């Protein structure tokens, strides 16, 4: 076969030559009797950026929250960086240390300064000494371009600044992969760009990322693959060019026509 299809429903085919960092096989998730995820098969390779799109309620958040066990999946296997997710607390924590997460509503700790927000996990989980942790936190703040806010409290920052702090916080544990759940959806339009720029530079530096987002410009520019979900299933997968220019499935076409 010389002509590999660039748009299909198989999300297990890694773009590029990275080894898989995340592997989901036959994952189902039920909330009571409601099936939120059905037979999810997906792999994400090292240094790959996968953007997940889909209508509201299609299971995008549930999907990435299953990866770090904020939700418990009911069937199938999830492997993160070679560790198979199980019910063992230590196993869960090991996986969580390898995965950073950035939330729609930032979820910074309001009673801690920006610096303490970032150093908390390294100090508490990895036992990094205070000085070392703070040095590293300042580097990260330089990277997200707000070192001058280090001593402030989250409540004193704009939404865009808060989300950049949240990104710095997720980087502090040196994760193998970062999960973004609609990181710009709660932001005022003028602040979206600064957060997207931060995410872009992360991607360019080779960070492995799964991003749930409605920012199609970002997807076009940065994504290696785009995954379209509907009703808890992966409907279509492809490179951004083909995805946006010639989507195969009717539901994908409908969705894209609505948001573009």
């Amino acid at each position, binding site marked *: 076969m010389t002509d590999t299809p660039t748009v299909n429903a198989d999300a297990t085919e890694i773009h590029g030559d990275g080894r898989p960092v995340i592997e989901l096989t036959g994952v189902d998730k039920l909330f009571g009797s409601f099936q939120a995820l059905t037979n999810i098969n997906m792999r994400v390779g090292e240094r790959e950026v996968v953007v997940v799109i889909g209508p509201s309620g299609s299971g995008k958040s549930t999907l990435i929250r299953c990866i*770090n066990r904020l939700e418990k999946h009911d069937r199938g296997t999830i492997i993160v960086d070679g560790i198979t997710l199980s019910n063992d607390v230590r196993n869960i*924590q090991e996986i*969580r240390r390898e995965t*950073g997460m950035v939330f729609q509503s930032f*979820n910074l*700790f309001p009673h801690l300064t920006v610096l303490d927000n970032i150093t908390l996990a390294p100090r*508490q*989980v990895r036992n990094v000494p205070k000085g070392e942790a703070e040095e590293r936190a300042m580097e990260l703040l330089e990277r997200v371009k707000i070192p001058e806010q280090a001593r402030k409290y989250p409540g*004193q920052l704009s939404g865009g600044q808060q989300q950049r702090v949240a990104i710095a916080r997720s980087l502090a*544990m040196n994760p193998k992969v970062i999960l973004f759940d609609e990181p710009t959806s709660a932001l005022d339009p003028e602040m979206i760009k600064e957060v997207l720029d931060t995410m872009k530079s992360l991607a360019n530096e080779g960070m492995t990322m799964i991003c749930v987002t409605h920012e199609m410009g970002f997807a076009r520019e940065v994504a290696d693959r785009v995954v379209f979900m509907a009703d808890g299933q992966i409907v279509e997968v492809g490179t951004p060019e083909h995805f946006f220019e010639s989507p195969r499935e009717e539901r994908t076409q409908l969705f894209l026509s609505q948001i573009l």
Partner: protein
Amino acid sequence: MTDTPKTAGEGVYLGTDITLALAARDEAPLHSDTTPGKWVKDNLFNSVMNSIITVVLGVAVIFLLTRAAQWVISEEWRIIQVNLRNFMVGQFPRDELWRLWWSAYVLIVGIGGGVGALAHNAEDDAREKGLEYKRSSWLDLLRRFWPVLAFVALMTSFARTWLPYVGVLVALALVVAARTAGWAMPAPVRARAVQFMAVAIVVSTVILAGTSGLVAIVAGLVAYFAVASETSRRFEGSDARSTLLRQLAPIVVGVAVWFVLDAVAVDGFGWEDWGGLHLTLFATVVGISTGMPLGILLAVGRRSELPVIKGFCVLFIEFVRGVPLISLLLFSSFILPLLFPLSVAVPETLTRAMIVITLFSAAYIAEIVRGGLQAVPQGQTEAAQASGMSAAKIQRLIVMPQALRAVIPAMVGQFISLLKDTSLIATIGVAEFFQYSAISNAQPEFLGKEKQIVTYSIVAIGYWAFAYTMSKESRRLEAQLGVGER
């Protein structure tokens, strides 16, 4: 006309409620650009109706003040003068009173020094974060604690010897000296302010109650935490071997302190004869300081996913909250001893009363804390979980601090209730502050003289002074902690 909608209210407000007026003055000082004459005209005589109200209330206030003045200079105060020590310390043996003074002094030095050091730490901290920090002047402290100081001054004025005057003056001098010294300490010493305060509390307790039994256990626990915080400071971020030392050292020291103190067994004074205001305050402090950790545990337990733990906590909280404190006290006093096997010594009445007060306040605190826990968004826990923190650390470092901040007003309200509720231990035959009103009026000299108005006024002023100070402090704390939250 600078007529504001509030003006009508303020006329009445000033006339009737001095307390509120003083409280309001703490927060909103009068603008300096209004002259007194203009202020009076704007606020008290700005309309016919307000003028009438002002005049009527003014006459009423003058009348009441004259009556009060007549009463103050009358002979009514003898009942307080004669019973001053009873009101303050109950039947505490008079030749052991030095213990009370000295334990108070040690406490003052410890707390005063610690507070001074902590204030300096807070200032450094704020400067580092580039935040505003307003250092409390002595005048600020006067403004914060004037009710208690006024009450102490009032009670001292009833003394018929010079000793209490000297004692109070020494105490005041120690407050000033300790706070100043605490502030002036070098940073590494100030970093240990809390340990210093804890040690002072233990020493103060030892002076009062000796070293054996419960005191030795508490001292051991304090030593444990003091050493633990020191080792965690020293060994932060180091390898497994020092982690072992870090966990062992506090245990060894704690147990050693417990054993040695228990073996030395310096005599103290048991609390069979404790009473008066001293006991009231002690019971309140015990109820708060032991009820708080227990209440927090109960609140966390009530949210547990393990049915046994959850069930126990719900059962305990709902039982205690469903029963009046007085019946719990009576139960502890009259029925509990019957349930003890003959071979086991029944704890003293007061010990049992303290246990009941602790359990009682724990149940209420638990519900307050639970409310606070529910107010912390789920996203906070998730963000902490996502970074791999353990459940215990998430509770301790993320959820609990936010929950407790959110419930400061309710919590202090509970503390104030507890202060007043301790008067119920009178029902099991313990003469605390409130009870001395009845006791003194039953003395032959005062029997049938109807001096209750005098004694109850003094008691009321006493409770009010502490309760009002607590409530003022809670508002201050709230404002302070609110700084970074918005």
